[in-house]
């Protein structure tokens, strides 16, 4: 039985905006096992990125505020650490890859300089050692002529290669946990396939745990072992990947899977569409956040916010209705 490396409990994050307080994350709890790949799925504004940024202490405060919760990593609560202590963990034990490879690299520093920085900072390497290691890292992510390319600037790389550089940088200190926030969204499909393939290979070689945030249920299907679906700042369903796709149980998950056309579809059907728009989260909902768009909603859904309950082995769902039977739970 592998150990839990990250245990998040009751995380709540809000943002102060001119329109009022936005409740971005409303009590999110989940665990991550060593070496496990967890997919976090949801649409824009569902709180998936804010959850991860909160854990890493990357929420600008103000306007952001972590109201409550804990995030145990390696025996310590990340939410209670000082900025200095967190800095030693970020990049060393936990590292992150962001969506946009064009803006997450510094355009005025060479790629070599940016790759060697964490090595010298966290692993106390000399410049020479760091440069050698940096070249190895670029080779590891399949960048040709790695040694020469260290003196190039980010604009001299294509989008896919920049994302590889980001991955090399994230893995440079052999982290136990890699958080990837929509790392392939900005890339073309053939390049996306290259990157997911690379991540799968590196996962086997290095054995780190991965949290893969995405809105693309297709990417997650091929990559993750377990999936969390988020909506309106809540986790609304959680299951092993095969179980989630074979037996989705929250109306939102069902709608999301039904609204996707498949490249291997054989007959033409109208896509299932979820009417309405995602909630604005300006007040903490007293009812189920999905109720206004849900075809199954019953009276209880409007009075009480459902809690995440177990409905099968490793399968939890937050819904008052058993959608399969059409009856209240």
């Amino acid at each position, binding site marked *: 039985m592998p150990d839990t490396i990250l245990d998040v409990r009751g995380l709540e994050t809000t943002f102060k905006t001119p329109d009022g307080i936005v409740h971005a994350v409303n009590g999110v709890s989940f665990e991550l096992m060593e070496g496990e790949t967890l997919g976090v799925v949801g649409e824009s504004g569902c709180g998936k990125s804010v959850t991860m940024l909160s854990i890493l202490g990357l929420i600008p405060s103000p306007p952001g505020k972590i109201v409550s919760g804990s995030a145990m990593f390696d025996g310590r609560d990340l939410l209670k650490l000082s900025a200095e202590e967190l800095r030693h963990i970020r990049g060393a034990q936990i590292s992150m890859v962001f969506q946009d490879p064009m803006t997450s690299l510094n355009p005025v520093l060479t790629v070599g300089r940016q790759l060697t920085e964490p090595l010298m900072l966290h692993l106390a390497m000399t410049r020479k050692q760091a440069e050698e290691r940096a070249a190895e890292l670029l080779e590891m992510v399949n960048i040709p002529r790695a040694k020469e390319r260290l003196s190039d600037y980010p604009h001299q790389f294509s989008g896919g290669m920049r994302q590889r550089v980001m991955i090399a940088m994230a893995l440079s200190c052999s982290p136990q946990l890699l958080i990837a926030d929509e790392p392939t969204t900005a890339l073309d499909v*053939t390049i996306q396939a290259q990157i997911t393939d690379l991540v799968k290979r590196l996962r086997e070689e290095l054995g780190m745990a991965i949290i893969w945030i995405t809105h693309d249920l297709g990417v997650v299907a091929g990559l993750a072992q377990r999936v969390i679906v988020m909506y309106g700042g809540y986790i609304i369903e959680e299951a092993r990947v095969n179980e989630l796709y074979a037996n989705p149980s929250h109306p939102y998950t069902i709608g999301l899977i039904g*609204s996707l056309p*498949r490249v291997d579809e054989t007959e033409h059907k109208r896509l299932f569409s979820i009417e309405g728009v995602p909630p604005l989260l300006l007040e903490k909902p007293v009812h189920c956040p999905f109720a206004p768009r849900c075809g199954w909603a019953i009276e209880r859904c409007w009075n009480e916010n459902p809690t995440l309950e177990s409905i099968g082995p490793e399968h939890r769902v937050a819904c008052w209705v058993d959608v399969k039977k059409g009856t209240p739970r």
Partner: protein
Amino acid sequence: MNDNNVLLRVDNLVKHFPIMRGIFQRQVGAVRAVDGISFDVKRGETLGLVGESGCGKSTTGRAVLQLYRPTSGNVYFDGVDLTKLKGEELRMMRRKMQMIFQDPYASLNPRMTVGEIIREPLLVHNLASESEANERVKQLLELVRMNPAFSTRYPHEFSGGQRQRIGIARALALQPSFIVCDEPISALDVSIQAQVVNLLEELQEQFGLTYLFIAHDLSMVRHISNRVAVMYLGVVVELTSRDELYLNPLHPYSQALLSAVPIPDPVAEVNRKRTILVGDVPSPANPPSGCRFRTRCPIAQSLCAESRPEFREVKPGHFVACHLVS
């Protein structure tokens, strides 16, 4: 040209953008965005145009509508060569062909109300008086499933999906027969994409519209199109019916592209064989000799560097540009 079934015929269309250098702005080269492509769009069908960023699919859409004047080649719409038209004649043709843009945030004027935006094409073309136009705006908003009372609001008050509906209402205002949809759903959230795609399909059935649907999402293109053209670096490499393309792709690029699309089904994902292309798309300012795809092609031979493969019909209705497909 006699085929009455064909609404749009594109014949050897070329669009190069000049690269200028120096204080005298001498032309030193050209970005060959679209480099000799031909296809037909039949009445009432949806032709999907897919490819990765920079392959020239949007440029094709714009060159078809004469928003970019083509460098060479012809575009026949209902038998009329658009590339020969100018001024008023072209303006009259524009009533019949409209466009829906990718970015619903940038394609609506933020200083105009929704009503003004949808009404503008009617007034520009002198097709309605002010009061008739207002009546029409209401009908159009209902058609795209929006509340007619929204006509006095501004675009920023709406979500991405709603804005895209406003863009669709504007495109429909002139009752066109042909609409170029340039990645109309790429900027939208997944659950909203299905709403917009379903709307486009309903409108097509209701008005017999013909679509050129440009997208990089192959699963969505498969869903909405009757036939699909695959573009790579300024050329069409394969064109056939959607089922034929997905079941029996012949060009190595189409095969790789299809195998790269993730399927939202973990069981199917584990069992499929993938072709992963190496490297990146070369620059269209300096494309490879011969076949454009040969630098990334898993089966390229020396012949591929020497001559450009002809775009030929290998089976009825199945066109492919590859030396190695017999």
